[in-house]
């Protein structure tokens, strides 16, 4: 299993992501944004978190024109699996690989804490090891995590089981930290090979750091 991890100027979660996947037995490679290709043996491409291009203009807006993104689009269109975490999610929505957009948090505050999430759909590679309705505890760390999609787009997400995760409390009741439409924390595309979420599963790999619920998420890709 080979995981390739994109690195833009300002990306800061690439080494956490590398460590997380290597702890699960995957081999990894970090791919600089100026590369026009991605490694041919890539089984999963991760757009890691951070602040690509300083979040200038809008989070993820400049990164979408990096040379590597053409290869990413082609990879995704051929059915390759892509996971965008936090800023990676923003890059994927800006690129049109995922529906919707991420706005400034409703409170206008940067949020950095553990947050519970509810699994809404597991008929996909990402969440296949979890059950629908499972409540997991994963760190969030974002300023622009307020997911927006219009009503027609939202109906389509529900119709195709594209809503992956929603924010909730420890008992699974909706608890919305950032104003996202229907408290959505993560979505996938229609063909279920491109995934994006604001929370950081790669930061939830060891109990000593507060949670290891990220293992079950990332391991889905290794099956």
């Amino acid at each position: 299993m080979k995981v390739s991890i994109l690195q833009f100027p300002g990306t800061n979660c690439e080494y956490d992501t590398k460590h997380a996947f290597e702890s699960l037995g995957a081999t990894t490679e970090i791919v600089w944004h100026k590369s026009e290709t991605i490694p041919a043996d890539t089984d999963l491409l991760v757009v890691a978190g951070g602040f690509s291009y300083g979040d200038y203009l809008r989070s993820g807006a400049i990164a979408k024109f990096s040379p590597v993104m053409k290869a990413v689009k082609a990879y995704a269109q051929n059915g390759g699996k892509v996971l965008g975490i936090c800023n990676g999610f923003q890059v994927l929505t800006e690129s049109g690989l995922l529906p919707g957009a991420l706005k400034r948090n409703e409170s206008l505050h940067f949020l950095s804490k553990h947050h519970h999430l509810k699994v809404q759909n597991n008929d996909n590679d990402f969440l296949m090891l979890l059950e629908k309705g499972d409540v997991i505890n994963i760190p969030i760390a974002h300023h622009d995590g307020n997911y927006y999609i219009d009503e027609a787009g939202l109906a389509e997400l529900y119709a195709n089981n594209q809503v992956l995760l929603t924010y909730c409390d420890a008992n699974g009741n909706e608890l919305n930290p950032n104003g996202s439409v229907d408290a959505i924390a993560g979505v996938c595309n229609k063909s279920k090979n491109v995934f994006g979420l604001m929370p950081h599963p790669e930061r939830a790999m060891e109990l000593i750091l507060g949670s290891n619920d990220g293992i079950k998420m990332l391991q889905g890709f290794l099956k």
Partner: protein
Amino acid sequence: MKVIVNVFLKNGVLDSQGKAVHHALDSLHFNNVADVRVGKQIVMKLNETDEAKAREDVTKMCEELLANTVIEDYTIEIAK
């Protein structure tokens, strides 16, 4: 040619920054403010003399980069 692009959140998309500024103005006793929208202004100098061509180019810039049309609207002003 100077071109001014204004980008604002679409009507119906909650503008949290606008709301926060509105509250702050209220607390300063500017009680006659009905609505506040916070947006971005992008000012460009174009090496172009043809206004129609400039407008066409800037529209493309807005669609591809300057605005995210999922959540934002834009206006283009050509300053003479």
